[in-house]
């Protein structure tokens, strides 16, 4: 087993580079727990689950409109049991109609994007894989931008984004079916090519958009935002992400096997092609749904799995739920900052990139020192 060079680790254009994370040494974070269980494993999920809850409550408590923290709690509790009303209608609207659906959406999308990244990095055996590498995000972006260009409704925008995300998956599937001895390479190249095609279509929509009436809306949407979050959007994203998450979590052991390589998978009785496409469909569904409600938010799928691995280890039975929880907390924090730092909303996609790029660089340096990224 040879230690990889940092150049190979960071080479997005070298998807054939075999990749997995070395199992942590005994005593290191994440070691010792078996499957989802084990004392350390349960502790990890308890901490991450509590973090998501704390971050979500924090998101409900802060914003441009001042609602005292005590009133936030009373408003939330009043949804379950009758309480003497000490808050205004506006306080209640802000918490119940604006912040709560938005926090739920960031939790759902954050978890979904992180799962997408973790699965793709294993399936494609590429540490820099994320939904954009598969081209799905670009397809979904085009669908949404096209809906704005045509002046269609928000529902049509979501449907367009979701639909074109799945169209990309079908195209990648058709191109990838011809896979010979290096199927992951074919899938990645198909994703890159299809993504580039739809990226060009996105550019075309922005080019022909009316600069006075459409361009700003398209650009703002493409940059990623949760400003239009509603309970309907929660449902639009929540159902596909839940289905996708259930699928990939059910296949978490097979994902471990798949990350060893196709030959090893076959020897262990796993059909690599079928498993791979099943996982990719789940990823495409989650990524398309996420883009449909929030625009293209980059770096979450890429960075969060790498943030989770030092704690969960590289066993996907622990990594997947850990990445999902961490992604939920991470994106909720980013969005809370995006909507509170300035009077104007900072597109959250900008913030995730600004924070994600240096974070990834730090992780790269740390992993390089620890020789964690390895060639198989």
């Amino acid at each position, binding site marked *: 087993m040879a230690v990889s060079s940092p150049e190979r680790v960071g080479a997005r254009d070298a998807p054939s580079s075999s990749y997995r994370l070395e199992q942590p040494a005994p005593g290191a974070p994440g070691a010792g727990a078996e499957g989802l269980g084990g004392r350390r494993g349960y502790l990890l999920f308890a901490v991450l689950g509590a973090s998501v809850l704390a971050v979500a409550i924090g998101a409900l408590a802060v914003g441009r409109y001042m609602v005292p923290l005590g009133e936030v709690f009373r408003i939330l509790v009043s949804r379950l049991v009758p309480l003497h009303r000490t808050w205004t209608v506006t306080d209640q609207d802000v918490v119940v*109609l604006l912040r709560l659906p938005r926090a739920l959406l960031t939790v759902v999308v954050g978890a979904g994007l992180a799962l997408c990244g973790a699965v793709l990095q294993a399936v494609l055996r590429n540490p820099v894989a994320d939904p954009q590498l598969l081209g799905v995000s670009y397809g979904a972006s085009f669908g949404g931008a096209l809906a704005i260009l045509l002046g269609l409704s928000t529902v049509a925008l979501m449907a367009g984004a979701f639909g074109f995300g799945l169209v990309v998956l079908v195209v990648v599937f058709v191109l990838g079916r011809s896979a010979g001895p290096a199927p992951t390479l074919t899938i990645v190249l198909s994703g890159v090519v299809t993504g580039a095609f739809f990226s060009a279509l996105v550019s075309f929509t922005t*080019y*022909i958009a009316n600069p006075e009436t459409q361009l700003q809306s398209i650009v703002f949407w493409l940059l990623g*935002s949760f400003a239009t979050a509603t309970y309907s959007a929660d449902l639009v994203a929540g159902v596909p992400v839940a289905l996708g998450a259930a699928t990939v979590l059910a296949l978490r052991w097979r994902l471990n096997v798949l990350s060893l390589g196709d030959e090893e998978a076959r020897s262990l009785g796993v059909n690599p092609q079928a498993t791979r496409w099943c996982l990719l469909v789940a990823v495409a569904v989650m990524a398309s749904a996420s883009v449909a409600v929030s625009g293209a938010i980059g770096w979450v799928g890429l960075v969060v799995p790498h943030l989770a691995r030092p704690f969960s280890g590289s066993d996907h039975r622990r990594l997947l739920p850990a990445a999902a929880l961490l992604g939920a907390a991470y994106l909720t924090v980013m969005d809370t900052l995006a909507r509170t730092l300035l009077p104007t909303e900072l597109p959250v996609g900008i913030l995730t990139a600004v924070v994600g790029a240096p974070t990834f660089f730090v992780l790269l340096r740390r992993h390089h020192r620890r020789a964690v990224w390895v060639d198989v």
Partner: protein
Amino acid sequence: MTESLTRRQFLRAGGLGALAVAAGLQRSRAAPSAAGITVVDQRRVKIHLAHPARRVVTIPEPAASMLIAIAGSVAPLAGMNRVSEAAVDEGILGVMFPQAKRLPDDVAGADFAPDVESILNLHPDVVVQWADHGDAIITPLEEAGLNVVGLDYGTQADLEAWVNIFGTMLGVPGRSRQVNSTMAQVLAELRAEPKPASPPSVLYFFTTVESLVPAGRGTYNDFYIKLVGAKNAAEAITGDQGAVGPEQVLAWDPDIILIGNFDSGTPAKFASHPAFGALSAVKNRTVYKVPLGGYRWDPPSQESPLMWRWLFELVQPARSTGNLRAEVKSYYKFLYHYDVSEAQIDQILWMGLNSSATNYGRFKS
């Protein structure tokens, strides 16, 4: 105490304005001579024309309608931006000047990059282009031997400079003086109006459908909100590029909300937001769609005095003269030499979309 504006005063304004002439000529000076015309554009570049421009191509969106207003006809307009053409097709300008609908609109892309070959085919005397969007969209035109007049955008001074430049370019400086003096007179009279002891807060939105983009400090909208004695609810932000969240709108809780013409937003759509029912403006039904005439009333244009008057009526209803419809009719006659019908005035003022708004009944015929 200054009296409220009367229709007579407003109409008289067209003949007034020695001061306005001086103000309007600040950034553009014409030097007509036997050798032709010299126009100084907003880059401070001198453009020499052998004769008044007879064929003009306009790339900035608002320029086409202003050129028509200054010329008094569509004749000098040889071609325009596709976006300007769309505005002509959709608005009343296309009704007033149907021949404008048939003009070439392939002179530039949405990014204002000129299609030089298409423009050369039109043999223009002058091409009007943005001066504040970089040299890349001007240089190809100049290298093709075309006369380029560069324009800046966003302030009342810019607007007055446009009027002067167009008048000079077309050989009708007297017409420019008329338009600018009208604006100056209305400005002076509104500035002389007593300000409310407790100015209402006004929040203007460029877009409300996909994103809430308000006009902050320093915008043209900020200028006229303050001109009519109100305060800008979005004073805390600068410019017009940032979107705000609904929570920020609730925190501002403006007295009056103006829905702009840069997307399909309407007062009803805005009020249907699940959290906006708590806004004072929604409860008091003081959410208004800004009128759309020969051009949008929200950005700076030759129709801006009507925007100021319309907003004044809504901000200070007690001082209203109640004759905006007559002023619209007279001003359109002055600008476009066209008699707008009562139905067309209803359309311009969005009487349907604003039908249930407070104080809007005063604009009924």
